[in-house]
């Protein structure tokens, strides 16, 4: 495999795995991953 091939593969894999891990961490960190949905107040105010 050429160096460019390696770079692209590592960037793609790294980027996707990082995004997936970040998302799962955020979902679990929200504390309601295994609880029934219940968001009484939206944490982000609606934008204009």
């Amino acid at each position, binding site marked *: 495999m050429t160096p460019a091939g390696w770079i692209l593969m590592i960037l793609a894999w790294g*980027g996707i795995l990082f995004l997936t891990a970040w998302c799962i961490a955020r979902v679990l960190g929200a504390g309601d991953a295994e609880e029934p949905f219940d968001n009484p107040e939206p944490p*982000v105010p609606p934008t204009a």
Partner: protein
Amino acid sequence: MAFQDPSTTSIVGAAGGRETWGTRIGLILAMAGNAVGLGNFLRFPVQAAENGGGAFMIPYFISLLLLGIPLMWVEWSLGRYGGVRGHGSTPGILDAIWKSPVAKYLGALGIFMPFIVMVYYTYVESWSLGFSLLSLVGAFNQAEGIEGMSSFLRAYQGAEIHATGMFGNVDFGWFIFPTMAYGFFLITMALNLYFLYRGVRGGIEKVALYALPALFLFAVILMVRVLTLGTPDPTQPENSVMNGLAFIWNPNLTALGDPGVWLAAAGQIFFTLSLGMGSIHCYASYLRNKDDVALSGLSTAATNETAEVVLGGTIAIPAAVAFFGVAATMQLAAGGAFNLGFVTLPVIFQQIPAGSLFGALWFFLLFIAGITSSLAMGQVVIAFLEDEFGMPRKRAVLILGALVFVCVQPVVLFIEHGYMDELDFWAGTFGLFVFGAIEIILFSWVFGIDRGWREINLGADIRPPRIFKFILAWVTPVLMIGIFIAWTLQSAIDTALMQGVEESTRPFVLGARLFMLAVLGGLLYLIRRAWRSRRAARPA
């Protein structure tokens, strides 16, 4: 107030007495299960290898950012918006965002496509189950080489009679009845209907909670096995896993100048995320008003990409190159992604230790990927019958089962005559772009980007970057319209005119078209009836 529904063991308590998801992780896994399908493991590596290798990933990721993630948020938001108003299918959802008599009829596409695709997809899914068991009992040993395995697959499908008569096919002269394939189809259909009957929380979510982790586990085991294949034949050092990875990832930067490569990348993002289908809307309709869609939608897309780029790209093609070399793999891939999975890989599994076990794992992985997607398609039809006709779930599931059973017969019997390919092109490919273009135009330009952006941010656990508001307003709609026009010019006109279709196949192709028109006509009639009944029932 929530109460237990004894027929479905689901909690009912959302607006309009509709079911809701049990847990957030269950919803995300179910959504990911909807998106992760056969295409992640079969279509993606072939597309990458055919369209510039590593260079393909550049338009692929740009499409993910400009098309995939924005449309994912749009479909989640639209689904939740319709769901809290009592609609889980797109006629009701589009009617809720656009007060025009036309809106609900445009939404018919969001039921038409999942239904048609479910008809043939469930059959293909059943092949995976059948092949998984056939691999486990060592039946592939009956087939020798690529030719032998092609013949094995054709006999299983009923395109020919196997020399040993092992599939019990019956020749009726103008068609061959594929006894074993039919049996596995019935089992697969029964499983789908059972899980659908159990409901959103008791069936679909439970399946996802077990199936998705199993799918990832199987895929990682297969990936490790493929990566440790090395150079299977030392006399042919160029046939190696490393060259297989190079085949997918070495960039051919000149391909970036080819508009076809950009179109292929955008198409792959669209297919892989199950956009423009109506199933994401349906699953999201079981959310409550202020449940997050921004983080959940992004998580779904990210999970799907892990299955596709990291796992899907590391199994089929590298294994094929390790055993057959780059030139032969290119030829095999040109024969279709499907051949790669059902012909090439079984031949490889015959040649490695414990191959029948790895073969069974591979096909069971495809089966899991398939069933988690077909459940999503079936749920759309059930939601339509439940929400718009007030039908009990049990009856809705029975009707769906009867319809799929009747409609799948020509798919099974005329598989050699292009019937399934025709359904796949119009409902499984072209229709997605049509509906994708319609929904983004309605969301951004009719519903309005300000209201749309507020919907995406309502209850959000992450703040989507503001640049996406501009992307949603202009970039995604313009891109979708462009892709729709390009696809029409590139494929739809030739296909519509039956260019290159053999004379003997034309009646079957026409039959498939008439069938689709009948389904669409029936849907439009049902929508008209449902809305009339509702209007009549409304107090004066």
